[in-house]
């Protein structure tokens, strides 16, 4: 739930302190949360409000009830992208809560990265399957995918708790999933609490999931159970079965770097050709990762991120030489329709289909779900458009 401090023109002249303090008071009184997370806007940032100081003041002046918290971070739209804001608030969770106690905990921190509740649920399922206790943050499972019960739960049962966040400082190790989303938080956790960390890709696809499982195994010293090996083998089996339909298919992708990097790797593992890739999120890491993945396998690939790496550019590239598949968020549907390309919806936001919050794309099972969508998109088009004499019952 999102409240606002309700700035007006006057606030922009006199500063937002009074508004924010009142907002904090109102929220705690009316909605009684454990934590208020303050996100700044272009407005408060441009006028130079010191949110940290205001939050301090809220506490000293008694607006924050005993045992409750106000955390904050800087999220002006003119710095980085939406991913930057995400990473900043995740880092803020570490800053405000992670603490070293005298008792180390036999648990692994999972900094989840920007993904769906279904993905977070699946990453936890895998670690549970390995017998590993984890603390995942943020965790939108059982928060953004709650049942219809006849009651609206303002604070649903899922998500990370404050004691769990505090305990992250005592954990054995941190896995940060997605360098753009999660590396800063993991770095701060090491600086603050000496918890060592690895930065991994989000476990999208065979190889990224392999790395996730291996990292979990290394960090926890727990062996990989046969049930996970079997899940892996099922994904391998499915890729082998689908291979002839996917081989050499040209794919255009757009979205966030932490999704695009493992997704590109996944497509390559199936011998598909990710030929055009754009991300609006700036930063050198994207280019480095893509170069490493593509230079040898798809030397003709074009990729670009940051300012001007937009869907207009992607559309121009596609018009120059078409692709067989488009992967990205709902905005892709306009290009898909114009150019008659099947679209597989992955990323944020998906505004026109249901299911992404319930069925993961991470892990081996999520990988199966994803490539089923990819194959269906390609074969449905084939079934629809092929010449009459080429319609196949069996495929």
């Amino acid at each position: 739930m999102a409240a606002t401090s309700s700035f007006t023109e006057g606030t922009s002249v006199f500063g937002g302190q009074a508004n924010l303090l009142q907002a904090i008071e109102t929220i705690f009184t009316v909605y009684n949360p454990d934590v208020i997370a303050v996100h700044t806007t272009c407005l408060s940032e441009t006028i130079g409000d010191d949110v940290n100081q205001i939050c301090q003041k809220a506490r000293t002046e008694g607006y924050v009830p005993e045992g409750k918290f106000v955390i904050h971070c800087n999220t002006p739209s003119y710095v980085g992208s939406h991913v930057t804001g995400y990473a900043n608030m995740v880092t803020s969770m570490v800053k405000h809560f992670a603490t070293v106690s005298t008792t180390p905990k036999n648990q692994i921190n999972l900094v989840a990265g920007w993904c769906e509740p279904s993905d977070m649920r699946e990453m936890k399922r895998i670690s549970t399957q390995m017998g590993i206790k984890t603390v995942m943050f943020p965790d939108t499972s059982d928060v953004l995918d709650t049942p219809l019960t006849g009651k609206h739960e303002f604070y649903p049962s899922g998500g990370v708790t404050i004691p769990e966040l505090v305990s992250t400082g005592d954990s054995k190790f941190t896995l940060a999933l997605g360098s753009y989303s999660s590396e800063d938080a993991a770095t701060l956790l090491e600086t603050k609490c000496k918890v060592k960390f690895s930065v991994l890709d989000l476990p999208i696809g065979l190889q990224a999931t392999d790395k996730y499982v291996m990292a979990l195994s290394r960090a926890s010293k727990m062996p990989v159970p046969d049930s996970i090996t079997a899940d892996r083998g099922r994904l391998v089996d499915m890729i082998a079965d689908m291979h002839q339909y996917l081989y050499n298919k040209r794919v255009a992708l757009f979205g966030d770097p932490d999704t695009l990097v493992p997704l590109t790797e996944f497509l390559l593992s199936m011998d598909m050709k990710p030929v055009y890739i754009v991300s609006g999120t700036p930063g050198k890491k994207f280019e480095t990762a893509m170069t490493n993945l593509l230079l040898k396998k798809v030397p003709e690939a074009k990729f670009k991120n940051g300012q001007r790496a937009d869907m207009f550019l992607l559309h121009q590239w596609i018009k120059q030489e078409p692709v067989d598949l488009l992967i990205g968020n709902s905005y892709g549907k306009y290009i898909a329709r114009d150019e008659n390309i099947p679209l597989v919806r992955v990323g944020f936001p998906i505004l026109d289909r249901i299911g992404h919050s319930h069925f993961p794309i991470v892990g081996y099972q999520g990988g199966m779900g994803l490539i089923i969508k990819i194959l269906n998109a390609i074969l449905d088009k084939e079934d629809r458009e092929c010449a009459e004499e080429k319609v196949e019952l069996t495929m």
Partner: protein
Amino acid sequence: MGKIEIDPLRWKEEVLKKYPKKVAKKRDKGILVHDGEMPKQIMANVRSIPGIITARGCTYAGCKGVVLGPTRDIINLVHGPIGCSFYAWLTRRNQTLPPTPESENFMNYCFSTDMQDSNIVFGGELKLKQAVREVFEIFKPKSIGIFSTCPVGLIGDDVHAVAREMKEELGINIFGFSCEGYKGVSQSAGHHIANNTLMKHVIGRNDTAPEGKYKINMLGEYNIGGDAFELERIFEKCGLTLVSSFSGNSTIEQFERAHTADLNVIMCHRSINYVAEMMETKFGIPWFKVNFIGADASAKSLRRIAEYFEDAELMARVEEVIAEEMAIVKEAIETVYPRTTGKVAMLFVGGSRAHHYQELFSELGMSTLSAGYEFGHRDDYEGRRVIPTIQVDADSRNIEVLTIEADETRYRPRKTDEEIAALNAKGCGFGEYDGMMADMAKGALIIDDISHYEMEKLIEIYHPDIFCAGIKEKYCVQKMGIPLKQLHSYDYGGPYAGFEGAVNFYNDIDMMINTSIWKMIKAPWQVEPVIEAEYGV
């Protein structure tokens, strides 16, 4: 209103108790129980209380999103960081139908200057100029509108100066909007700013009048779900010529010629009455409020338009159309009515919809137990007669009020004062709007800028059969087992305006209220405690 078991005054009292004192004091004035007499004064169009959880949008949303957004051939260039552009990209559901596949349509695009940190520090005017040139280079539009987001005003970028300079350089119509998000108290301020700019820079620039005997403009209709298409259909069938629509399915050329119409009819009073007022002063075009939400209301509105033109042929044609359309409407309502009558609705949305849609519910035999606007002013609740008494507070004072005079060459009164008076006597109601409350039943709860907390309590206590609001409320309310009809996006249904729209609405409400799934929310083991009963576990 059979379901009201708890006195609404008691409800209000309980709800206010929850708030901090200062908050309660303010909310007290925004919540009324209608006593069925002359509407009482409500506090509206004031700043939302910090922390309260409101459904409102910002000024930029009202200006770019609502008023200018639906025009297909103006390039709407947002000057600001990318967020304001991205989240407003295609998320308002205006439809548009270019006459040919080759005709200009920029609505699917998202134009932004994508301001960065350095632009905040060193200023963004250069980048804005570069963006204007680039967009011109690629798309060669007739016109470009520049929309200011929060930082623009704060760092002192002068979008109007840039617009003037670029207009000169490129030779097309370019204009700026100082619609920074923090202006005013809600999107309503944005509507006003948009209206002002249309008057200053667009309306009246092209004197070529379209053919047609009965020329009107439709103001405040934004073609959500194709509403404007349905109204265009009806107008054409009646023989009316629509010069310009503000702004559903519109083009800039329509705006430029709007002053050649002979009547302005207003749908959404809140968002566009400024234009009607100013056009009357400047061009002599009378206006009145219409309502095409509801079949009876649509018929009534058509009759008033025909009345205005004082033409027997038109009146006859309108009656024919009404008879034809109402036959279909009647058939539809007869099927649905038995399943909807007696049900209870609540509406919290917009600046006119929470009023208009009560018509449709009433046609379905449904009562409106509670309603309120998101960004309405007192006149939208109490009627325009209170306008002179409305106090403009600090938050709204900064919105420019244009001083308009009659256009030297273009002013032409369409009717004499006597004719106006005569038509008024017949019920045309020039320049009038009685507001929502006049149409509501005794005991109804009127709540302005409802908070999330108040909404939850309304539902908990009164269990309406349907709740009308927007996407922010949709899923909370449905989790409570109450169907929520979005009246911004129509839940991707529609059109709901006019006659066919009414039929669509009847069917959609029937669909929602009588959905099988709402009866299956409880699992069987939650309703019949089988284990205990059978095995004593």
